[in-house]
Structures are given as structure tokens and as C-alpha cells.
């Protein structure tokens, strides 16, 4: 259990089957997990900037419809009240420029989405274990 408090993840993913699989796998490991699902960048930024109760971790796909994941990452990292929230880029891309640009823009981690369900399941489990049991996340109520 994360000694700093419960995990609240904002997922930004436009692929329904990936989104559902990730939610189902994480909830299976951790029924108390809070997961907010958004399907595009505008919805994610709207959720981050106009609601109270910010998440303490963001999982972001790069290939989104409308405003893409790279813009969302830059917007989060440029926002004084959001920039401390770690952003995991979780994407089908493995282009070296996407990897470098994501880290340069302040992504916490770049993780490539595996193709097979077995590997996807393992990756999601490791992400959850790392952030819920090893990492300490900011918990303060960020004024937005």
C-alpha cells in the first residue's frame, strides 16, 4: 500500500478495448483504485483544470483524436498546478523520436504497449505495483 495515500489515476486513451483492459486489470489488483477514464486530450485537460480532486498519476496515450498526447503532456508540464503530476506515456509507438521527445517534455516514463494480451497484462501489473507500492506520489489538494 502506498504510504502516501490512495492511487488516483487519470487515463487518457481513445482505444476502448485498451482502456477497458487496463481498467479491468488494475481493478483486479486493487479494488480501491480510483480510475478516471477520458477518451481525448481536450476532455483530459478539461478534467484536470476545471475539477477539484486532481489525480496523482496520469497514463497518456500519444495517438489521440483531436489534440494529441504530445500536446497534452506539454500542457500538463507547463501548468504550474499540474506539472508535479507524473505522466506515464503508454503508447503503441516505439519511435526513438517519440521516446526522446516524451522524456524531454517531462514524461515520467515511456512505456510501449505490448501487442499480446499476456504481455499487456504483465506490463499493467508492473505499472500498478511500482506506483502503488514503491513510489510516493504528491497528495496535496492542488488548487486548479
Amino acid at each position, binding site marked *: 500500500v502506498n504510504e502516501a495515500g490512495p492511487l488516483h489515476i487519470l487515463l487518457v486513451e481513445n482505444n476502448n478495448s485498451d482502456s477497458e483492459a487496463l481498467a479491468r486489470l488494475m481493478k483486479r489488483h486493487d479494488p480501491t483504485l480510483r480510475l478516471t477514464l477520458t477518451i481525448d486530450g481536450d476532455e483530459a485537460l478539461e478534467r484536470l483544470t476545471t475539477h477539484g480532486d486532481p489525480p496523482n498519476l496520469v497514463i497518456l496515450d500519444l495517438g489521440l483524436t483531436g489534440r494529441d498526447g504530445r500536446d497534452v503532456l506539454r500542457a500538463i508540464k507547463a501548468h504550474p498546478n499540474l506539472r508535479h503530476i507524473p505522466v506515464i506515456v503508454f503508447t503503441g509507438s516505439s519511435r526513438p523520436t517519440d521516446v526522446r521527445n516524451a*522524456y*524531454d517534455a517531462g514524461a515520467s516514463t515511456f512505456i510501449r504497449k505490448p501487442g499480446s494480451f499476456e504481455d499487456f497484462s504483465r506490463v499493467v501489473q508492473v505499472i500498478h505495483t511500482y506506483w502503488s507500492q514503491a513510489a510516493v506520489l504528491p497528495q496535496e489538494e492542488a488548487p486548479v
Partner: protein
Amino acid sequence: VPRDLQPVQILLVEDNPHDIEITVRALKKGQIRNELLVARDGEQALEMLAAAREAGTLPGLILLDLNLPKVGGIEVLEAIKRDADMRRIPVIVLTTSSREEDVVRTYDLGVNTFITKPVGFDDFMRVVSTIQEYWIIIATLPANQRGGPAPVHAGEVP
């Protein structure tokens, strides 16, 4: 899960010999033979990074204590994250602190993860193994920083 795993050079910035020992042992238990360099204070860390940058062999991952002699961990983190060549290297703060102030400050400065060192030996080993599994097996690190010859020998662990 990627099959093309290559050894990653890890820079550990830590002044406590006991914590260095545990980290080395936990990393050796992993399935990949990563190369570990150790800096024993913040000043040495910055010197090693400057030399590695000159040689084009920056580490793939940095584990950073906060409470360090000479130059503190926060200053080391700031120096890394404002440098155009080094900022993309993932930095994991591994510290005895769990103060919210330190957590928020380091994330604001761009730390990739803040981790509080567990007190017990077994828990510490488990956390280092989790770090290794997450960063070496699951994550994709910036491509130009994998592998490469060892640039610095001053603080290398035998």
C-alpha cells in the same frame, strides 16, 4: 514485454555504504547484468555526469539520494533537469524522507519517481527489484543512452 533488453548503465548517488550494498545486491539478483556506477556525494555525481557527457556515454538511469554531502540531491536534480543533454535521463529519488514538501518539490523539478527507502532489509531489496523491473524491463529508456562503454571508473563498484 520487450525481448531486446540490453544492459543499462545506472548511476547510484548515495553516501551510505549500507544502502549502496543493498542496492548492489538487489540489482545483481535481477535478470539483466546492468553496469552500476556509484557517486558518494553530489559533487562527485556532477563531475561524473560532466565527464560522461563529454564522452557521449551518459547513464541510462540515475538513482539519487537527497541527503548528500557537499552538494545536496535537490541541487543535483536541478542541474540534471535543466541541462538539455541530461534532462531526459530518468532520475529516481531514493531517500529516507517522505515529507510532502520534498515529494512535491522534486516532482516540480522533474524527478521521474520519488521513492521512500524502506527501513527493513527485505523491503529495501524488494523496492530495488521493483525499480529494476519497471525501468529496465517495462519502460523504454531514451534510445541513445542504452549500453555504451563505461566512461568513468572513479566510483565503480567492483
